[in-house]
């Protein structure tokens, strides 16, 4: 029978002492021994821990990697650098696209809330035609450029082109917005 029933705090304290014997003073050790003599569950825990502790305190084998670990690491550095670079480009493009979408959304909200339906339809048709023309021109430029640019220069070129495109688009959106506001003021 467990003599410590009804005294959970004391019991916990002795469990702590049993499982960290290296931190005990001689007096505490005696206290634990006295307790173990009367408490069945703590005696059981003490015996179990003695066995586990013997196993843990014997020289434990250190696992070693297969030969050539550092050479494999050295070989992987270039690949990892390349992957990291691609990851950065992907993140940059994602941020670019999100910024662009956010800018378009803000512009759209402002534009639709300040113009009549007729003007919106007319302007949307005009803008779509212009965008289509711009897209076709862009595709032609990209295919021409990628044809003669070496691969090393391709990523920096694409990044510069994307940044320039973003800046131009933002400038375009801002100027259209300002023009719209000016027209409304004149009317």
């Amino acid at each position, binding site marked *: 029978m467990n003599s410590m029933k009804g005294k959970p705090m004391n019991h916990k304290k002795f*469990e*702590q002492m049993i*499982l*960290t014997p290296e931190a005990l003073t001689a007096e505490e050790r005696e206290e634990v021994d006295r307790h173990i003599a009367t408490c069945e569950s703590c005696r*059981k*825990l003490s015996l*179990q*821990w003695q*066995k*586990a*502790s013997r*196993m*843990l*305190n*014997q*020289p*434990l*084998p*250190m*696992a*070693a*990697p*297969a030969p050539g*670990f*550092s050479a*494999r*690491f*050295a070989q*992987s*550095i270039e690949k*990892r650098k390349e992957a*990291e670079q691609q990851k950065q480009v992907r993140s940059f493009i994602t941020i670019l696209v999100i910024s662009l979408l956010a800018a378009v959304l803000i512009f759209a909200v402002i534009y639709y809330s300040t113009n009549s339906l007729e003007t919106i339809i007319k302007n949307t048709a005009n803008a779509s035609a212009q965008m289509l023309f711009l897209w076709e021109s862009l595709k032609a430029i990209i295919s021409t450029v990628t044809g003669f640019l070496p691969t090393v220069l391709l990523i920096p070129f694409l990044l510069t082109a994307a940044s320039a495109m973003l800046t131009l688009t933002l400038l375009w959106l801002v100027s259209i917005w300002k023009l719209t506001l000016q027209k409304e003021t004149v009317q």
Partner: protein
Amino acid sequence: MSGENVEHELQQWLDEAMQGKEESFCRLVDHYQNGVYNLCYRMLGNRHEAEDAAQESFWRAYCNLHRYDPSRSFQTWLLSIASHYCIDQQRKRRMTLIAIDEPFEETFGSNSPTPEHVYSNNEQSNQMEELINTLKPTDRAALVLRYWHQMSEKEIADTLSLSVSAVKSRLFRARKELAEKMETRREEYELHERETYEPQKI
């Protein structure tokens, strides 16, 4: 080579690596590979995953060398990266138990004991490792760093980014769980033995 010379050389490689010399970092990898790999292996319980985790840990260290605080031990910093990576991996996999019929594969380093000693201890080691694999990731990391890497509670706290009292409580919980599970395992084993070898009644 004396210990002082080794320390001097390691410091030199570290300084060079921090200045961007890749070759010096690879020398550091060569020196610390066993410690990092052993931690990954004890944490993940699988040779292939341990290799990947150790390689990834060194790569993360390489990328974050500029963040390394030279007042800390470089080995503790590396082990900290490896243990955090392994804990994350385990949490991702939600793996708390490795199949019991799949014992740990062992490769012994140069500091391994004699073959006789290995043979007599192997069964016990496998049993202990299987039990350690059932612990929670952070408890397991604390236990591995304490018994395989002989770290103090303060060093474990630094490595796992925990307070010393949190380490004490994790070690306490891990030890208690181990002791209890060992007993359960022993009882199951005895029952199995009795059922296997008891003469069948006709």
